[in-house]
């Protein structure tokens, strides 16, 4: 029986993976490393594990992923690079754009400089914590200005104090498209944008595969070295898809049979 190492934080362990663990434990031995109770050090990197799955993006988990990758030959899902790039919004936007993926125009500005875009969404720069998008929507002089409270906290808060804001040009879209990727297996959904209806699950529905989106998703996952991800898109008035967000630790409970799909994918990866 294969041994899968799960690197996770207490929040995800207690709230997000019960069903997944139930299924996975029937198929593999599972060793759990909890961020809040693991001491990382250079002499503590011997693992009897066939594959690691990183469910979360806390500081210790990210550091542990980096160490495992450098010091062992055990495969990681996702890779350190993939996790790091997903967390660093500016960096993933830069790489995706350079790689030919359409992302909304973006800019990183000092807090004393205005957004270069009349209609914009301000987002947090480092997307590492478990709290979700908290938009504050303003309409001024015919322009739409959406500020994420998390970004304001990061800019001026007690801990980070970046004094910078990440601005993304606003793309008006009737629907928000969400694609979950487990390797090459993709699952397509659409919902009313959360800015219109914050209860995303109320309007979410599964849709048929969209060929154009499939190509973009697979290319984006490759560019960011992600094997498991969720990706958000908006579709402009010109019918062009813009990749607006990417997440290396998607909540697979939101898709039908998600915990089983995730567990099966990990088992399949141990065979490669």
């Amino acid at each position: 029986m294969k041994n899968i190492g799960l690197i996770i934080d207490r929040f995800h362990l207690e709230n997000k993976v019960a069903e997944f663990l139930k299924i996975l434990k029937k198929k593999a031995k599972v060793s759990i490393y909890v961020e809040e109770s693991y001491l990382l050090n250079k002499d503590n990197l011997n693992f009897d594990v066939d594959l690691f799955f990183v469910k979360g993006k806390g500081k210790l988990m990210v550091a542990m992923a980096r160490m495992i990758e450098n010091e062992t030959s055990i495969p990681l899902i996702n890779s350190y690079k993939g996790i790091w790039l997903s967390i660093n919004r500016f960096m993933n936007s830069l790489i995706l754009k350079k790689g030919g993926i359409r992302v909304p125009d973006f800019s990183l500005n000092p807090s004393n400089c205005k957004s270069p875009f009349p209609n914009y969404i301000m987002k947090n720069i480092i997307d590492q914590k478990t709290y979700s998008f908290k938009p504050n929507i303003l309409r001024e002089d015919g322009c739409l200005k959406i500020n994420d409270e998390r970004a304001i906290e990061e800019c001026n808060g007690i801990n980070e104090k970046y004094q910078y804001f990440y601005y993304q040009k606003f793309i008006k879209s009737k629907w928000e498209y969400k694609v979950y990727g487990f390797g090459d297996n993709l699952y397509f959904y659409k919902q009313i944008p959360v800015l219109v209806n914050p209860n995303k699950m109320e309007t979410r529905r599964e849709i048929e595969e969209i060929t154009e989106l499939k190509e973009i998703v697979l290319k984006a996952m490759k560019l960011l070295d992600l094997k498991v991800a969720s990706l958000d898109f908006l579709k402009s008035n010109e019918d062009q898809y813009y990749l607006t967000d990417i997440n290396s630790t998607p909540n697979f409970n939101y898709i039908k049979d998600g915990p089983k799909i995730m567990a099966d994918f990990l088992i399949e990866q141990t065979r490669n």
Partner: protein
Amino acid sequence: MHLRIGILSKRKGYFTGKLKNFFESNGHNTIIYTKENLCINESMLENDLYILKSKHQIPFVYAGFYAESHGIPVIPNTDISQKHKDRFEAYLLIKNAGLLYPKWYYGTPQTIKKNLKDKDFPLILKPVSGSGSRGVKVIYNFGDIENLNQDILYLEKYIEGTHYTVYFIGDKICAMEKIPLKNEHSEMTRRKLSKEIKQIIMTWKNQYNLLFGHLDIVIEKKTHKHLVVDPGSFPEFSNWKCGGDPVSLIGNLILEEYKKLKN
């Protein structure tokens, strides 16, 4: 050729200000970008070269990556500068160069208390993202850990011995003895360059193709082992006492490197 040079720096004065004067006196237009005026977008593309003096991820490292992704050279290289700033990446750089590094621990205060013993102290608390002495503190016992208001700690074994800051600019190496944990600007005494220290610097410099920088090295009293405790990609060189003006030495190295990169 007259270049448009951008210096990415948290300060306008000190070494940065002198470097700007050096480039301007050599006919190059030079702008210092700090957290006050650095917008990372197309506006950055008007320069020919960026110098990454400060390595805070936001905004300077990001700006370096932005410039490089648009084909504009950044000196020192952004990726290596970023790795100097991150404790884990710095540890891996040192390890992968075959050099020695002190034991370290990373975890919550509870985990550290559970796993460490009295004999493991003293330790040094260091910020994960940082280099130099800012935020560095000696932790003598478990009581000191309880007094820290941090959810996750990076602690390194304190090495008792002789502490050095060793600068290098091109082929010049300058070994300065310093008081443990004092910053780069504190008083230091020049020491004769030993064979071991020279070897460490040459290994480091060659492994990562560095033009200049520094390593903090401790020679352990008990074992005489040389441990690298902190690397720096662009120090202030405030204790450079080995001949020549570090500003013009570095300025010339940067201009030569730019020519090489463009050819």
